[in-house]
């Protein structure tokens, strides 16, 4: 299979291992999505195991009255002594009463898969009954890893985005009255500046990012005269963007392949395949690709990118010539490896849970091109890695930095191998020109620590 697809990016070398690796369960996406979509409520339908994971993974967030909860399945649910529909109705009515959200997102888990609970079938009926939209996403550990959870949720939401004709202003007004009022002034302002934008086809971006990053990327495109017509997801469920046949869409994260597929096949959108706006090189390539597809001529990108690199110089000096090994757990690996290669690092291995060579094509090509330009060998991309084997390779290679999950970080540090916790890349702001420094801030932290402590002589703290 690898051979057949090899011509796509001839230089890159793909391997696939056993899939015995550590990653977060995809239900973890509720942690950032409930914060992003302010009027949502996430109901994870699973067992104590799921609940315990969320409780521990989200640390202090759990105490802040989160808009998520477990529908904890009991023995009666498993053996179908209880009726799924009635049970879910009872819980959703309680949620409606206590929180009154604009949407309830059901997260299907391994257990609902195995007992074949028909969430997609129950949702429309219950939705009609209680009057709150119910979106179903099967973000389970049987099929997906970590950030792919967001992909399953956004793919479901893509189906809920209104078409122009469908927008029922009356209903929207009712649901969203105050928000409308608040936005009133802003709307006017938008029209006033309409002339700053060039004429182009409507563009919708997809991928959940913190609001400051959304603003940042929006402004970056605005500088080129490109107007973003909507963003999936928006701050509120009631503000999901209009998506019409023929709209252009572009992803901001590498793990959104299902969402991209849904937008193309179900909503008849045109996907702009671009590298992802991670690092100044990625951001520039992303903007250039969008502009070229929309027929907009870019301006000032050379200077903009050069300026950013100049600001990064002190950090680039630190990483230049150092080697890095990605164990792989969040699908950001290829984009990060490409950026770090551009910074002058040598990448030993790019572990990744799942590799969609079509959705990531532009990013993969960009990686190959970057390696060529930097005069380094192309790294091997290891899909479904085997952590045990990887640890043997790490032991042999002795890389300067291993980007890995928390399960391996402390044990590696005790063996004198510097590590950076991979999950931080998921939660930190890493997109766009402005945030390139944040990526290097993370990457250089263990190296800076090493510089500070280098004369103490206690690098290795276990006998191996």
């Amino acid at each position, binding site marked *: 299979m690898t051979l057949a697809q090899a011509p796509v990016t001839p230089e890159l070398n793909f391997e696939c291992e056993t*899939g015995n690796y*550590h990653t977060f369960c995809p239900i973890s996406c509720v942690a950032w999505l409930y914060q992003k979509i302010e009027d949502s409520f996430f109901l994870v339908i699973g*067992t104590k195991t799921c609940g315990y994971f969320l*409780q521990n993974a989200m640390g202090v967030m759990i105490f802040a009255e989160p808009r998520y909860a477990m529908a904890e399945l009991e023995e009666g649910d498993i053996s179908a002594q209880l009726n799924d529909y009635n049970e879910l109705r009872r*819980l959703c009515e309680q949620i409606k009463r206590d929180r009154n959200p604009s949407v309830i997102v059901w997260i299907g888990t391994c257990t609902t898969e195995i007992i074949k609970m028909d969430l997609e079938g129950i949702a429309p009926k219950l939705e009609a009954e209680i009057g709150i939209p119910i979106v179903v996403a099967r973000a389970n550990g049987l099929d997906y890893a970590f950030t792919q959870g967001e992909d399953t949720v956004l793919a479901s939401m893509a189906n809920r985005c209104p078409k122009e004709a469908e927008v029922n202003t009356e209903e929207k007004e009712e649901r969203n009255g105050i928000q409308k009022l608040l936005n009133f002034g802003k709307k006017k302002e938008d029209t006033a500046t309409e002339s700053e934008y060039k004429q182009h086809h409507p563009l919708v971006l997809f991928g959940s990012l913190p609001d400051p990053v959304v603003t940042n990327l929006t402004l970056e495109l605005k500088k080129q005269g490109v107007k973003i017509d909507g963003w999936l997801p928006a701050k509120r469920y009631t503000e999901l963007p209009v998506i019409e046949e023929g709209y252009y869409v572009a992803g901001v994260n590498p793990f959104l392949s299902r969402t991209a597929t849904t937008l193309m096949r179900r909503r008849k959108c045109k996907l702009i395949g671009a590298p992802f706006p991670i690092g100044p090189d990625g951001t520039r390539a992303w903007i250039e690709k969008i502009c070229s597809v929309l027929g907009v001529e870019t301006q000032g990108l050379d200077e903009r990118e050069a300026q950013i690199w100049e600001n990064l110089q002190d950090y680039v000096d630190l990483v230049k010539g150092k080697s890095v090994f990605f164990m792989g757990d969040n699908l950001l690996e290829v984009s990060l490896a490409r950026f770090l290669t551009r910074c002058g690092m040598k990448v030993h291995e790019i572990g990744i849970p799942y590799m969609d060579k079509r959705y990531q094509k532009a990013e993969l090509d960009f990686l190959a091109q970057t390696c060529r330009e930097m005069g380094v060998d192309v790294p091997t991309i290891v899909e479904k890695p085997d952590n045990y084997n990887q640890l043997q390779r790490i032991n042999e290679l002795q890389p300067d930095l291993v980007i890995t999950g928390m399960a391996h970080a402390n*044990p590696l540090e005790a063996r004198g191998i510097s590590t950076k916790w991979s999950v931080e890349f998921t939660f930190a702001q890493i997109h766009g020109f402005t945030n390139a420094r944040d990526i290097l801030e993370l990457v250089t932290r263990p190296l800076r620590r090493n510089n500070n402590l280098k004369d103490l002589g206690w690098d290795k703290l276990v006998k191996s």
Partner: protein
Amino acid sequence: MKLAYWMYAGPAHIGTLRIASSFKNVHAIMHAPLGDDYFNVMRSMLERERNFTPVTTSVVDRNVLARGSQEKVIDNIVRKDQEESPDLIVLTPTCTSSILQEDLENFVSRAQLNSKGDVILADVNHYRYNELQAADRTLAQIVKFYLEKAEKKGTINREKTANPSVNIIGISTLGFHNNHDCRELKKLMTDLGIEINMIIPDKASVEDLQNLPRAWFNFIPYRELGLMAAEHLQREYEMPYVDITPMGVVETARCIRAMAKVINQQGGNVDYEELIEYQTIEVSEAAWFSRSIDCQNLTGKKAVVFGDNTHAAAMTKILVREMGIDVVLAGTYCKYDEAWFRKEVEPFCDNILISEDNGEIADAIAKLEPSAIFGTQMERHVGKRLGIPCGVIAAPIHIQNFPIGYKPFLGYEGTNQITDLVYNSFTLGMEDHLLEIFGGHDTKEVITKGISADSDLNWTKEAQAELNKVPGFVRGKVKRNTEKFARERNFDQISLEVMYAAKESVGA
């Protein structure tokens, strides 16, 4: 289905993994989907563990769902046996494998054929047991397995040690302050002249389990873990056990006396009274603290206690019996062992709450308005919200509850630690109180958390100012009581006079 935001005890497999990873050279293989190996993260982070956690997953994915695990589990077991040559591999079922109902027992016996180490299947049902029960069962299961194996091979060692000796059972990874407690217990045994035969499961080798019967008796410091193993050893090898948690001065003495009795019944001749007296007066400061002015000031203060059985019961007794504090509510989330808890704390507290619902506990705390809480991390956050100080005495816990410094809860040094914890919790509140009596560092607006915040009653300027001087953690209560008083007497305005009158009448 149950709507849940938080849980006190984890799922069953966590308990099994805690036992497996406590032993030396034991590996656990979970039969679970991707992402369920979260245990490794917890152990690596919370315990700041230097070694790789000996837990891997035999991944259940779409293919397994369609065709069954087939050779996958067996291959994974055999592979791990070759890679790391563990003494024992524990195949660990999860909620997922519970419903798949694959014949894991069969996988184990087939994998055993090609493995040098032993292979067993943890006998825990996800839907029947929680983390604590599963840990207890798994420990008993492993002990039983190795004793039976030794019986068959004839290597079992039943000969008692020359001097009185003990097995300490129940010290495990991710247990609340377990490593400090273990050190303290070792010291205590040394002081008592009792040899330590074995400590399990912590850092023990399974091959040594055949020596368990050599000890004169077993000692179970925690109610939740080790009792099943101790009962098995009593049944099969007539080994007596002591299961009194030596937490607090009185209980530590009771525990030591029980040990003396067990030793003397077997022909020993020990008398620990002198040692108990010396430790109580000279080593522990807790006895002296209870006489001191500091503790006198705590007399009759209200506290709420919540946690696992061991710590909540012991804490309740310490607060009431040794410090004269009023425990208005003692509770546990160990529902399955409710009767024991009730029996232990009944004489010491006003109310008992047995619940796994954190909302119920939070509501009870809000209603009772104690001066301090002793609970889990969840109660600490409840306290934060209500402005009530909280000392953490039980899991679930965060990384700050795995201190590097020596902080046992058991034994005589443990009594010192607990004294600090209790006193600091209360003085924190007192300090707050004094600051506000003298106007505080700044003049904040009054913050009330009660439902009466938007009441129909008017407070005069002076009364409002007076209310603002009331310390934060009782301000809500004063406000509510004053308003209740005013309503009952049909005052529509609360003046300074009304406030004082209310205080005089209800002690607001």
